[in-house]
């Protein structure tokens, strides 16, 4: 039985009267890795941000794991308390990391565990150390984010997100601030998460990565999802091929 973890229908988002999302619908099944591709300005980030309630849609409905985030546009949003609960199921990795500069590497990973999930210091640190270990950052636990390389920063951001046990992992161009070598490191980590059967939604400009790691591709242009399907199908579309060649 396939289970939809995320269902969004008819999303419309306007910025200053301009439609940036024009009737976008998508679903995400439990355990699948989906990639969103498309030219810059197509509305990919806006879509992801709307799904995480970093922006609010003007029209449409969003449901996450059976809980309703909005049942109809801007005025249909659930109360803040419930939104917090829903958001807790989502993890988000920012293009520019957004690590907490004033916290040590370890504390970046423990802080929310402690103050949001109420875990004890010991529990939170154990979890954090295991994740840092996985991200090959164990020897960095006591330093500060400003002393990490770009690739290490993004891996720390991933560890920080994973510590909260989210059901859906969202990545907004996780490698676009990194050089090719560091990009490889980070993509390797994301690939390993996909292999674990995590549910993921990844905006990426790495066409080879999308083709090989994602089970499903959404191709966006001008505020719409123009094409969705398996990598084979989507990359067979001449419009997508034309776009991919420019990347």
């Amino acid at each position, binding site marked *: 039985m396939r289970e939809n973890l995320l269902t969004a229908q008819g999303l419309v988002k306007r910025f200053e009267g301009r439609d940036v999302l024009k009737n976008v619908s998508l679903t995400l099944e439990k355990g699948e890795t989906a990639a969103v591709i498309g030219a810059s300005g197509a509305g990919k980030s806006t879509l992801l941000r709307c799904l*995480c309630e*970093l922006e609010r849609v003007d029209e449409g409905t969003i449901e996450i794991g059976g809980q309703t985030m909005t049942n109809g546009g801007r005025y249909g949003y659930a109360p803040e308390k419930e939104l*917090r609960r829903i*958001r*807790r199921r*989502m*993890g*988000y990795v*920012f293009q*520019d990391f*957004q*690590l*907490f*500069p*004033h916290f040590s590497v370890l504390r970046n990973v423990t*802080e*929310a565990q402690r*103050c*949001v*999930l109420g875990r004890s210091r010991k529990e939170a640190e154990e979890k954090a150390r295991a994740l840092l270990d996985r991200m090959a950052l164990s020897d960095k636990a006591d330093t*500060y*984010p*400003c002393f990490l390389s770009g690739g290490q920063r993004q891996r720390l951001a991933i560890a*920080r*997100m994973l510590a*909260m046990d989210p059901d859906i992992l969202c990545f907004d161009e996780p490698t676009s601030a990194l050089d090719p070598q560091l990009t490889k490191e980070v993509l390797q980590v994301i690939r390993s998460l996909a292999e674990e059967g995590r549910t993921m939604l990844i905006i990426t400009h790495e066409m080879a990565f999308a083709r090989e790691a994602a089970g499903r591709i959404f191709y966006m242009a001008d505020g719409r999802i123009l094409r969705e399907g398996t990598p084979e199908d989507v990359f067979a579309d001449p419009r997508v091929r034309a776009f991919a060649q420019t990347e």
Partner: protein
Amino acid sequence: MKYLTDSQAFFGLMNQLWMGLSVTLPLFFYTLIFSLPLGVAVALLRMSRFRPVAFVTRIYILVLRGTPLILQIFAIYFLLPKLLGHSMDRMFSASLAFVLNYAAYFAEIFRGGLESVPRGQREAGKMLGMSRTQVFFRILLPQMAKRCLLPVSNEVVTLVKDTALVTAIALCDMYYYAKRATSASGSLLPLFIAGALYLLMNTLVEVAFNRLNRRLDYYRG
């Protein structure tokens, strides 16, 4: 010349300045202790998305920064008792005027500091499930503090010197005694000594802020 030749007069003067410090120093510390947190609150009200609140706060800041502190001290000392119907302690009214005035300055500094923390920091906290209060106290406030240290230290240095204004409502602070001794003796020495003591206080302020700055220097950004 009297103070240089007559040691008794000199020690009498020092004793008076010392008494004056028992007004100057509490005034300084009360102002600091209360206007810093109040400044944070005013900054938040100023940034409120509820327009009327932001507007009223803006007027508050405009008036308190836009009029002389000495007028505000007079206003609170003479007008507030009329409104309340009972008289008020001089020290209390002076402290109140200072707190309200400095909170307005601090608020603008803090607002700038808060706005300079990238929006993504708030979003990162939000996506980790933190409440708005948690995001503010754990993520934004510490980063704001670091960014505001230098402008705040400027205000604190000014505050040390501004305390002398309370002489105007006949509060016996250090400047009051120095001025009185100078008028009585014709010697400028009391004012010089008071000046040196203000300078000493501000040296301590500078040392304190340097230490604080070094303590917050463990990270960049």
